């Protein structure tokens, strides 16, 4: 079995774990004509069962933590997790709150961080591509 087809056929599922929507609209913007990720074979799908890459946005709120874990479980292997945005990567401005338990990497393993508040669509696409590169390295037997 080869992972080479991953390179050009990535299905992405987007989970918002308490984000402010800034990153989310940039993810959608990446789909639309100016950026058009479909030309790289990247597609946004409606269920984690179909996904190869999870795009997670937002600091993880208390009720979303368990849900995020469940979505991660539901995603079939092999899979990669890309965190989009500063608050998912480091908690950002949302520190010292009773309802924020993030950042994302405290809940599920993360492969790629895309910083920015919000990151530009180009950066998000780059993050997804880096996630694939990581999967490929695994294929080659390298430790990442």
């Amino acid at each position: 079995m080869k992972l080479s087809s991953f390179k050009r056929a990535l299905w992405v599922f987007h989970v918002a774990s308490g984000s402010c929507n800034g990153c989310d609209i940039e993810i959608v913007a990446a789909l639309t004509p100016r950026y058009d990720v479909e030309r790289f074979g990247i597609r946004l799908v409606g269920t984690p069962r179909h996904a190869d890459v999870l795009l997670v946005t937002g600091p993880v709120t208390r009720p979303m933590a368990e849900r995020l874990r469940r979505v991660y479980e539901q995603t079939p292997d092999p899979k990669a997790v890309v965190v989009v945005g500063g608050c998912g990567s480091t908690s950002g401005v949302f520190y010292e709150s009773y309802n924020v338990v993030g950042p994302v990497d405290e809940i599920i393993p993360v492969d790629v961080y895309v910083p920015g508040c919000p990151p530009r669509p180009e950066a998000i696409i780059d993050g997804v591509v880096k996630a694939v590169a990581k999967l490929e390295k695994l294929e080659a037997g390298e430790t990442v």
Partner: protein
Amino acid sequence: MSVLNALWQAILVLFGGTFLALVYKGIDRKLAAQMQGRIGPPIRQPFLDVGKLLVKETVVPRTAVRWAFNLMPFLALIAAGTVLLYLPIGPFRPVLSGYGDVIVVLYLLAVPAVAMALGGFASGSPFGVVGAQRELVMLMSYEFPLAVVVVALAWRVAGLGVGPAFSLATLAANPLWAQVGPLGVLGLVLLFLVLLVVTPAELSKIPFDIPEAETEIAGGLMVEYSGVNLALFYLADALKTVAMAALVVALFIPYGIAAPLGISGVGGQILDLAFFLVKVFCVMFAAVTTVRVAFARLKVDQIARGFWIPLTAVAAAGLLLLVLDKAVVG
């Protein structure tokens, strides 16, 4: 025709058909993207998608009925593939022409839909179940006008007395356009239009993609499928698209261009085959690609109402015109 020969042909048609189906799907996606102002994926994208799905883990949810959940994708693919074997491919007679007729094709076309519905029920997810209910309502809606179209054509061909009326090979070999009078031509036009409207519904494409409406029920039927199972449904969908388009071609535009151009032999066959592929593409482009780009998704009750009353009425009118024409022409 020997069994071995038929087997060879079947394998050729199935593999060729699958290849073609994926190429058409790629072209469809590319063109749709272009119409939406995007660049779109490369044409080989469906191959990459299928290849990737085959590598992915295949998850069976704990709440699912395991055997049914795993069986249905195979059933859908086999049924969609079998339809191809009953269809005349350009200059060639259907591989299974001796073994069934157009009614079998109608049944087989319904099988992938039923398989998807059962798979949706078996997945145990509420979205899957809603999707399955919708698929069945759709099935009930579009089968009737479809049946009227096919029966009308077969009845008229039977009147010609040129062979077994319900055989697709006969239907394809005897295009009706030249055999009927002006009333009949009008009737045929109506039936052709009905078939073109039924095509996207049969294929669950926008505006009729309600069983898997992504924004409503998150992929519906497919919501729990992953990996190989999903790949099989993906292939079944692609195959069914080609099969449906080929059926439209066989019923209404079975003409070749080799004979009028005076080319015969292998060259003529190749030319006719190529022309057939172009026709299939044109039908697909008209009935699937442009339609799905130009419309919003309809609601299930809007579709059911639209198909049961106005569309069936148009189909019946087409049938009636053919009958009148027969009475006039004799």
